[in-house]
């Protein structure tokens, strides 16, 4: 069925629970889009180290796949790397921290806010500005930043941070305070890029990892995430959250934080992992645009037919649940986690997902 709304009209309608011609679609395809630039040989490490190449990926990806959103996720080692952690780069895959900067209790207090115009922080901000300038009249654009606890676990290793939450509590808080200031500098930089929204990765808000008390103390509270969420809105960007964990803290991260968009994954094998239907049924899409929940593995391992079938089933599940809840829209077919940027990801599956939503995503209650 042909679209009758453009991307911006559809997304604004979905954000405000107005009728849509179809559910919006945005597999979180970021690094993988470098493969549709030019002759397709751009390396990941070049894409994530050069603002022009970073932006080229999103611009070419938009042209090739025709997404409804553009979200500037680079990877989760950007900020830790700029604070001094060693990042192992890869030609075709996501880089990661292989040597933390915080190794002993005394190191928590030594970390400093880097110059956000330099390093990969600078690449991220400048690259975001470039793709926002190019795509802002076509899609809803958003920058993407790592929350303070995520940055700290990258800078120190998650196991160390979790144990030090009890063994060196005040040191952990000092580091989180520093990283929150770093995040605030990043917000200012992102505000200059003028995306419509800013997505925060708060992935430790998961009941597989932290309980409510620990999550609130070490990220959710006002002086960390609370102040960042407020500043995001004050700087003119819609506050959004991404959390690809298996058992997300939905009450805190949707009902309390009140993001405009909440991107989440679904793990059918994990008891209690909320399905799309349950997420909508339990009211989490009442005041928030929920984005999910196709398994990102499918973009690598499924046949095109299976991607089509899965996307069709998701559309049907979501449409039924939205109608039962009395909602017009408020759901985006997305991938929950980033579509793997590796060369083995099947580009045709990304296209199939988007095209299937175009064909079967009409909501008629």
């Amino acid at each position: 069925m042909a679209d009758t709304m453009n991307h911006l009209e559809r997304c604004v309608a979905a954000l405000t629970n107005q009728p849509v011609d179809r559910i919006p679609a945005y597999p979180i395809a970021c690094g993988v889009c470098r493969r549709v630039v030019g002759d397709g040989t751009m390396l990941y490490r070049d894409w994530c180290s050069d603002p022009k190449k970073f932006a080229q990926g999103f611009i070419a990806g938009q042209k090739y796949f025709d997404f409804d959103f553009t979200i500037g996720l680079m990877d989760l080692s950007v900020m830790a790397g700029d604070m001094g952690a060693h990042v192992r780069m890869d030609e075709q895959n996501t880089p990661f921290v292989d040597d933390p900067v915080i190794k002993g209790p005394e190191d928590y207090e030594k970390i400093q806010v880097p110059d956000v115009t330099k390093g990969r922080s600078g690449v991220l901000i400048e690259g975001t500005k470039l793709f926002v300038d190019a795509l802002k009249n076509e899609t809803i654009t958003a920058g993407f930043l790592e929350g303070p606890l995520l940055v700290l676990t990258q800078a120190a290793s998650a196991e160390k941070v979790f144990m030090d939450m009890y063994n060196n509590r005040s040191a952990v808080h000092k580091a989180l305070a520093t990283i929150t200031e770093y995040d605030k500098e990043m917000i200012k930089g992102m505000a200059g890029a003028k995306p419509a929204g800013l997505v925060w990765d708060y992935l430790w808000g998961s009941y597989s990892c932290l309980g409510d008390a620990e999550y609130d103390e070490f990220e959710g509270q006002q002086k960390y995430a609370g102040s960042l969420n407020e500043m995001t809105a004050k700087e003119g960007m819609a506050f959004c959250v991404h959390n690809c964990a298996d058992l997300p803290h939905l009450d805190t991260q949707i009902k309390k934080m009140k993001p405009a968009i909440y991107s989440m994954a679904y793990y059918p094998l994990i008891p209690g992992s909320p399905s799309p239907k349950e997420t909508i049924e339990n009211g989490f899409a009442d005041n928030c645009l929920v984005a999910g929940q196709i398994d990102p593995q499918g973009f690598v391992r499924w046949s095109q037919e299976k991607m089509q079938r899965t996307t069709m089933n998701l559309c049907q599940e979501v449409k039924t649940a939205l109608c039962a809840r009395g909602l017009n829209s408020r759901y985006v077919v997305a991938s929950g986690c980033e579509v793997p940027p590796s060369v083995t990801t099947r580009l045709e599956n990304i296209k199939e997902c988007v095209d299937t939503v175009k064909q079967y995503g009409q909501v008629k209650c």
Partner: protein
Amino acid sequence: MQAQDILAGLEKAVITGNRADSIKFAKDSLDAGVKALDAIDKGLVKGMTIVGDKYAKHEYFLPQVLLAANAMYGGLDILLPHIPTEDAGKKVIGVIGVVEGDVHDIGKNIVKTMLTAAGLDMHDFGKDVPVENFVNSVKSEKASLIAMSTLMTPTMDGMKAVVDGLIENGDRMKVKIIIGGAPTSQPFADDIGADWHAINAQEAVKKVKGAM
């Protein structure tokens, strides 16, 4: 101090994540003539089993589990050298690690802890482990179990490379293979020729203990 009090002390030290107490009670147990194996099984392991149950019920979370594991290993370091060689030799040896290209090891560490608590002699290869280390482990470590994890999609193929390597060197039938990590599944385990997939540490213990 009575043996019963020492065992209770070991159990409590693990449940509360108190490494110093775990070490202290482990030393006390040796001084009091408690068999090292009893101190491990009726103290440390009992405590870790309770911690595992609490984690499964979302009464404990990762920080408490990691502290408990740290406490358990503190006690184990004291007690293991005192296990008679003939008893130690009866244990099933397993190797565990995060596959090459990935450094996310919290899940691996918890599985290692729970398998250790379940009575296996787990040899930890760490993270970012080259394929050949797993492939050679049947000979180098006398492993009967290989446990591999990854949190990242691109590194999943390393698991298949391990299975293929074991087939090639003739050791596949001598070892059981279990995999885990967010992107993995039983169909993926079946695809690559692994024996089991586990969604968490409890399931890993259940599957391994049930078969080995």
